[in-house]
């Protein structure tokens, strides 16, 4: 066995070509810091992280093969991200852009976010220039199409969405070296979308499903968010927030990490109000700490609240 220490990644390719030092290549590619950052800043999402590792390995091997003069087709990397709201689709897309850039798959590594409004026009002949504009802007980077299924309106056969879809398909096929397209949306609706547009389904190589977060993961996300904003929870408020999340998860329109962020924003609002009402001197510690009371005032706790806030 080779004496060098292997980087931690478990999914790194095992195949060893005769004289290529995979470890050195892996280190030189600087992917590990990116993957570490991913691990640090994205809670949970294990299947997604695994897939990103696999893609990274695939690209690294493809590059090595190219260096060794072995034929390697350029892998197709168009992806679809499915999952409930707030499960981190956009965040991962952003990371994906920089990972693909690091691996030399895309030239620039910027992310262009587009929805139906950015692609589809309002009258005849309006769609093509609009879509072209967005595609041109995304060249060299990643085009992220949020709620992609809105492009296709089966109930209206004269809808201009179809035109945008055709242009997208053409670019996805012919200009694979210029951009990567990521389609995102709810899982069931994406599936219907792919069924009615088989062209998309065959051109999208990677289907990533974002799972909902568990309670513990949501707590970890909350702590991470607060830490970044230099706020903190004490034991009482941590318990309160946990209880809040448990109740909130049962309610409709729960949007995972986004709901956590909104809840924390409202808690911060109440904290500010509470501090102002108290007046007098405050310490840094008080400015940082969210009290259990700030959280328990939420409408989610139903009975014991004044009904003053929105979900």
């Amino acid at each position, binding site marked *: 066995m080779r004496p060098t220490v292997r980087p931690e990644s478990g999914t790194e390719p095992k195949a060893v070509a005769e004289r290529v030092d995979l470890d050195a290549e892996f280190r030189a590619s600087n992917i590990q810091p990116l993957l570490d950052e991913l691990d640090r800043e994205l809670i949970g999402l294990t299947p997604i992280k695994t897939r990103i590792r696999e893609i990274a390995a695939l690209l690294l091997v493809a590059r090595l093969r190219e260096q060794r003069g072995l034929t390697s087709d350029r892998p197709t990397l168009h992806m679809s991200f499915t999952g409930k709201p707030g499960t981190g689709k956009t965040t991962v897309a952003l990371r994906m852009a920089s990972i693909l850039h690091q691996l030399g798959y895309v030239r620039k590594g910027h992310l262009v976010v587009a929805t139906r409004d950015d692609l589809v026009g309002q009258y005849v002949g309006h769609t093509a220039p609009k879509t072209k504009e967005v595609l*041109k802007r995304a*060249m*060299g980077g990643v085009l992220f199409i949020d709620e992609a299924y809105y492009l296709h309106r089966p109930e209206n056969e004269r809808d201009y969405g179809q035109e945008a879809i055709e242009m997208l398909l053409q670019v996805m096929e012919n200009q694979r070296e210029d951009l990567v397209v990521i389609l995102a949306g709810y899982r069931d609706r994406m599936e219907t979308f792919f069924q009615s547009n088989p062209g998309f389904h065959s051109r999208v190589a990677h289907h990533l499903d974002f799972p909902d977060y568990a309670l513990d993961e949501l707590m970890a996300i909350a702590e991470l968010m607060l830490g970044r904003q230099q706020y903190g929870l004490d034991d009482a408020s941590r318990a309160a927030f946990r209880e809040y999340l448990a109740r909130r998860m049962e309610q409709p329109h729960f949007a995972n990490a986004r709901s956590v962020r909104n809840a924390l924003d409202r808690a911060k609002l109440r904290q500010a109000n509470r501090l102002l009402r108290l007046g007098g001197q405050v310490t840094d510690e008080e400015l940082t700490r969210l009290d259990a009371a700030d959280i328990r005032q939420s409408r989610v706790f139903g009975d014991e609240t004044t009904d003053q806030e929105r979900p």
Partner: protein
Amino acid sequence: MRITQGTFSYLPELSDEQITAQLQYCLDNEWAVSVEYTDDPHPRNAYWEMFGMPLFDLKDPAGIMQEITACRKAFPRHYIRVNGYDRRYRRQTMALSFLVNRPPEEPGFRLERQESTDRVVRYTLHAYATDRPAGERYGA
């Protein structure tokens, strides 16, 4: 007569890779790029037709190359140039402008002399191509 207008015009024709590299330079400097065409080669003809929209907000030259290719396809026998506009305050001018397409045959110019008062002679250039109406110059 090979017309020399804009940057690089005394060099051999740029290849597509070289054009891409120049475009990348424009984008790195945050210059707004546009593609223009004309069939009036007079050196004082400053206002060419713009092909499509000006290309703002691009990160990568692939989008511009796509536009150039489309323009070449639409006007294979026209002059096509690419401009890089530096919008910075106090510069606000074309920073780079070079030809990316020219007609296969360029008939050139003739010198015209105009007699004026007191035996003064005024000189001007006249492009042979412009004897024909716009769109029909340089053959079909």
